[in-house]
């Protein structure tokens, strides 16, 4: 048996119905008793998945032209503001944008309602031009009527994320959930050993152009995600121990399912969106087998104090401990809870596995690999830089 395979060879096996596909959780279990060599002889593809709140998400929409036409400048959808700066009838609606009259309804809900086939109220104003004379429009749109609805999420699927706690004496309402005072709880948000970028920590198989499952439909990795950071500290298993790489993803929202895109509202924080993503990893060589075999106890993350400015680090833990329901920190036992759904992530990983086995989903090689040695800039508050 060859211990190196190509994506083309794996696709041929998929076409013949011979490809062996298992989930990242299954391969981690398998690796306890089998060597990477034995695994690569048996398995061709490993499926990974995540279903969690991912704020940096949104949708491009094209409404089509009315008669007489309008060059929309001030746009709202179900009273949620959308971008008016994108030609005449294109817009981008951000998931975290909030309705003018309802803090519990936002861009994420508009996206959900559109996927659900509901009518959404479109209002727009314009100054009126010779070629676009209409100054106002007030109508309903839905999935069937509009030309395009494209989900484009600039930053999804974080490779690891800090676990959050709160050392202060007051409850903190954060995007990491409600953090009780005095180290009252710890929350975390990844699917651990099932999470896409934790199974490909060096980003060897996932890159620009990789075909994925996004919101229950086929989508693509469009680019490296924003705040893409490859120079974070890594543990001895090569896993960054804090949030690192990210993905920008794109897909046809008309094909998506409300099972895998759900609006979320976090108390005293605001609107976000649950996004379901599944990514296949081809087992091309033994080294990739080693990376997909990573287990929860080997994936560490940093515990950060979200009660204090700058979220100072308090220590480290791993996903086996976090998933057990409690961790120990400074001799104290603290209750833990996830914010991303392992239950849903498993459904996505199984769905992707079934699609590949039923010859409905083929693997892609990245068109281009992600950049290396990228780090982050903070935002300086400063005056204009005169020369």
């Amino acid at each position: 048996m060859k211990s190196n395979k190509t994506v083309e060879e794996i696709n041929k096996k998929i076409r013949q119905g011979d490809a062996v596909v298992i989930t990242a959780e299954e391969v981690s279990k398998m690796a306890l008793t089998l060597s990477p060599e034995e695994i690569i002889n048996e398995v061709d593809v490993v499926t990974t998945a995540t279903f969690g709140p991912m704020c940096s998400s949104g949708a491009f929409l094209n409404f089509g032209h009315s008669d007489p036409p309008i060059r929309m400048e001030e746009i709202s959808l179900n009273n949620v503001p959308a971008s008016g700066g994108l030609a005449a009838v294109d817009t981008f609606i951000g998931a975290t944008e909030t309705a003018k009259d309802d803090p519990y309804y936002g861009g994420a809900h508009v996206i959900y309602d559109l996927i659900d086939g509901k009518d959404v109220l479109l209002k727009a104003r314009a100054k009126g031009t010779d070629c676009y004379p209409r100054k106002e429009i007030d109508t309903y749109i839905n999935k069937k009527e509009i030309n395009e609805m494209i989900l484009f999420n600039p930053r999804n699927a974080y490779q690891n994320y800090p676990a959050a706690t709160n050392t202060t004496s007051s409850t903190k309402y954060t995007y990491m959930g409600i953090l009780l005072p005095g180290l009252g709880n710890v929350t975390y948000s990844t699917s651990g050993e099932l999470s896409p970028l934790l199974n490909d920590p060096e980003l060897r198989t996932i890159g620009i152009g990789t075909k994925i499952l996004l919101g229950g439909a086929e989508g693509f990795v469009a680019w490296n995600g924003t705040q893409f950071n490859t120079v974070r500290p890594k543990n001895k298993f090569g896993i960054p121990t804090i949030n690192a790489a990210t993905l920008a993803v794109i897909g046809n929202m008309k094909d998506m399912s409300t099972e895998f895109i759900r609006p979320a509202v976090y108390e005293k924080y605001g609107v976000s969106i649950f996004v379901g993503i599944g990514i296949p990893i081809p087992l091309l060589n033994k080294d990739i087998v080693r990376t997909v075999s990573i287990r929860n106890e080997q994936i560490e993350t940093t515990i950060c104090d979200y009660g204090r400015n700058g979220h100072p680090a308090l220590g480290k833990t791993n996903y086996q401990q976090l998933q057990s329901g409690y961790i120990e920190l400074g001799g104290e036992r603290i209750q833990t809870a996830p914010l991303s759904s392992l239950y849903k992530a498993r459904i996505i990983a199984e769905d992707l596995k079934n699609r590949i086995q039923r010859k409905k989903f083929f693997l892609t090689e990245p068109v281009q690999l992600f950049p290396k040695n990228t780090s982050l800039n903070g935002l300086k508050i400063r005056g204009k830089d005169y020369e």
Partner: protein
Amino acid sequence: MSKKYILKFRPSAVEEPVTYCLIKEYDIRVNILRAEIYPGKSGIMLVELDANSIKLKQAISFLQHKDIEVIPFEKRIHLEIEKCVHCGACTAVCCTSALSILNEKSELVFTPDKCVACGLCVKACPLQLFQLQFEE
């Protein structure tokens, strides 16, 4: 047997030493989990009553004679589980483990018997799927 009830007091009943009577006359182990008095002096109390079923029945009929409304607790907390995504955010604030995802499927399981109606899950659920009726 031990059961949780919500007791609703009209203004006329707020000053009755009801808990004393439950203990002294009916031999009930009373655990007050939550109690509030609203403007106009109507009151509401979440209690766990522990006694044999005959005593419990007698006690409830005593409360009803005092014009106190006795509502079995499970009818007051509601989770729309069919819409749940099993994220687990509610379990972060549930100190009695009435809400838990610590099972093989990582599925949210709600055990109303363990709930003390603190109401934190209502705020913690990003899908707003909990309803707690503990008000007038």
